[in-house]
């Protein structure tokens, strides 16, 4: 016995590895041939190998609950997901196009607001945006870039076409898992890396560091870059430490920094050392108790002054989250056209904005067929999946939308693509997944080869968030020579 494909039916979803006729797609052909030779024992052995590697590397994430915080090992499926290099090249171009346009948009919002004056986006959308920070008006970050690190969520529909589902421009996380997934897979299937041309991913920290260095206000050969974390109790602390280590820079907490004469210094064993660039992993509202949340002990008093006076760079810049709003998302194709005069290379998912009376009526009439999302949440919280919702939930959301239409958007339920996933023993079943690539923009742009593939481990489920039972897979961008 080897892998058990008996129950494997992808129905009318797009399958990442297998065609509708049941043949391996080209980028996956080596992988599938190779997996076919495995005995049950061999599958078990490789699964164990992955488990041990994950435990040893200490890859974990934290779940917050009323019962206390639990550090859980990272759930991982050993069968990788493959994407052809040719398709990825176009997708990557589309992603940097999108981020370029979004940065022009943010910069415009905090200066002349041409896009509002030209009535491309209704003014009320910005006025009521939770993430528009009036404190940022007039600030001019270097290269005109506000969102330096972006983690966009991509999905495929039944035809296999990529769509952007959302843009994460605040403090997107997951890239460390992307890198660790590859490290684990190299231990689990070392043989495959010889026969398959898999694009490497481990250059990300180098690109991140040179992007961050390019933001330095002082012209130094080695600007002083630090990663600012809220601390060990943050769910992404693992990633903060991981990135600091891979870049060889200091991981600091708010209490390690101090602002004097609008410059930021780090408390060190040598005394105070000036800091040039802060890769902050703290939300806007906790950054500076002088300006935002007064009770925040995570931030640094005076940091906003230092940033506005151009003495220190913050990545992502405060206020960049305004473009992360799901209502703004609906306008991104127009934003690309407006600033770049280009057609979007990757499409949006069809989106209904509840603030628009006509679209709202459509949403309210079709609630049971749609996915409803609040404009400013992340992690999959506070959303409604119409087809799976109870009558009570539907009514509850009807009321929510009516009372605060600006805060909701709706999208059709997507037929998310699937990939073969080991569910129990040697049993392989299709599971839904998405993809989060990471895009950098400083002086130059960079897109990861592939991204973090998140899998909904529960049968039929569309929720891929790790906080809600999601797992992940290594993602291979495979050059098939075509």
């Amino acid at each position, binding site marked *: 016995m080897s892998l058990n494909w008996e129950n494997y039916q992808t129905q009318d979803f797009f399958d990442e590895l297998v065609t509708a006729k049941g043949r391996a797609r080209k980028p996956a052909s080596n992988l599938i041939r190779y997996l076919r030779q495995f005995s049950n024992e061999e599958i078990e052995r490789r699964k164990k190998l992955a488990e041990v590697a994950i435990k040893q590397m200490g890859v974990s994430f934290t779940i917050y609950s009323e019962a206390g915080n639990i550090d859980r090992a990272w759930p991982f499926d050993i069968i990788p997901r493959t994407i052809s290099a040719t398709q990825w090249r176009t997708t990557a171009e589309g992603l940097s196009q999108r981020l370029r346009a979004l940065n022009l948009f943010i910069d415009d919002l905090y200066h002349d607001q041409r896009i509002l004056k030209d009535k491309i986006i209704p003014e009320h959308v910005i006025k009521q945006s939770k993430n528009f920070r009036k404190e940022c008006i007039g600030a001019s970050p270097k290269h005109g870039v506000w969102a330096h690190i972006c983690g966009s969520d991509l999905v495929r529909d039944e035809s296999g076409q990529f769509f952007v589902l959302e843009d994460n421009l605040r403090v997107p996380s997951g890239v460390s898992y992307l890198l660790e997934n590859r490290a684990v897979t190299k231990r689990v299937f070392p043989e495959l890396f010889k026969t398959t041309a898999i694009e490497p991913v481990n250059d990300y920290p180098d690109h991140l560091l040179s992007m961050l260095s390019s933001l330095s206000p002082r012209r130094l050969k080695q600007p002083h870059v630090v990663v600012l974390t809220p601390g060990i109790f943050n769910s992404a602390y693992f990633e903060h430490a991981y990135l600091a280590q891979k870049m060889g820079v200091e991981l600091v907490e708010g209490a390690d920094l101090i602002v004097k004469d609008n410059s930021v210094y780090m408390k060190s*064993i040598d005394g105070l050392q000036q800091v040039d660039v802060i890769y902050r992993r703290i939300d806007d509202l906790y950054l500076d108790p002088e300006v935002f949340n007064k009770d925040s002990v995570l931030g640094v008093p005076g940091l906003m002054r230092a940033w506005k006076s151009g003495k220190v760079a913050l990545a992502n810049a405060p206020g960049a989250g305004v473009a992360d709003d799901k209502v703004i998302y609906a306008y991104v194709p127009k934003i690309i056209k407006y600033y770049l005069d280009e057609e979007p290379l990757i499409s949006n998912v069809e989106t209904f904005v509840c603030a628009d009376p006509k679209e709202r009526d459509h949403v309210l009439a079709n609630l049971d067929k749609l996915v409803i999302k609040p404009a400013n949440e992340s992690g999959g919280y506070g959303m409604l999946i119409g087809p799976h919702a109870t009558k009570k939930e539907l009514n509850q959301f009807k009321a929510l939308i009516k009372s605060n239409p600006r805060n909701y958007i709706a999208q059709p339920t997507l037929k998310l693509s699937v990939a073969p996933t080991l569910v129990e023993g040697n049993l392989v079943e299709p599971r839904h997944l998405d993809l989060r690539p990471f895009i950098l923009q400083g002086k130059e742009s960079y897109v990861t080869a592939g991204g973090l593939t998140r899998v909904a481990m529960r049968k039929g489920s569309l929720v891929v968030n790790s906080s809600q039972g999601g797992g992940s897979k290594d993602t291979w961008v495979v050059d098939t020579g075509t």
Partner: protein
Amino acid sequence: MLSRVAERIYWAARYLERVENTSRLVRNYTLLLLDLPQNVDLSWYNLIILNNAEKEFSDRYQHRSEKNIIKFLLANKDNASAMIQCLKMVRENVRTTRDVMPPETWETVNELSLFMEENIQQGINRTNRHEFLDTVAQDCHKVHGLIEGAMRRDEAWQFFQLGSNIERADMTSRILESGATMLLHQSKASDTKLSHLVWGSILHSLSAHHSYQRTVRTSVNGPGAVRFMLEDPHFPRTVSFCVNALLECAINLPRNETAVKHLNKLKRSALKEIPHDNLGQPFVDWLGHLQLEIANLHLVFSDNWFYWE
């Protein structure tokens, strides 16, 4: 380097040393008790006294049984100095300083933590205790090996050495004290056979038995063991060696004037007037004084590098 990071590395090293010391101490005490004549009454409780943990122990246990004492020393999660808790502190400190340590340090410490969580019972029962404690000690050596072989001699390295050496000096003085105390309460203290056994065990607990024999070249005796563990300049757990190592670290660190001054003073005065001829109460008192000096040294380091504001 961040003051906070320096402090965490220093503590990671101190706690790691405590884990290793506890494993060696319990292992050798177990062996010693197997060798003692029936009529000698040596109690496990000495290990509690050695850790200054009399109160903490009596708060939790009524009987000073082997099982209770071993549980307290290895596994009791309410006891801050229990091996499992010390390792937890190593793990937390390494976890929050991953960016300045060799990457495998975290993996090794994490692996050891998982091993300990799963196997702590092995340490409590006598049958597999030796094997369990050996594994713990070996993993501690692995971390030291990584730091020795894969870490740049930067400031982080100096702070790790600072932590290791201050803890070693402290532990050595405490373990010598336990030897002296054990014999102090024996009516047969002058019994050379008993003295030989106890001081031999002390040297084993300090990984020094082999080096002692090669250096001193006489059979193990109290004054010889004490002199070796305090004064030998080349064995890495003697007080003399540790103070020299601390001085060397301090010299390599920035803003070091106070610390260097203190260490020089300690070097000149600490090892004077050792009561070699009476290893009873006068020696125990002398060690108590040395431990205060070491505690004071810690405050000097703290003020100088960790809380400079």
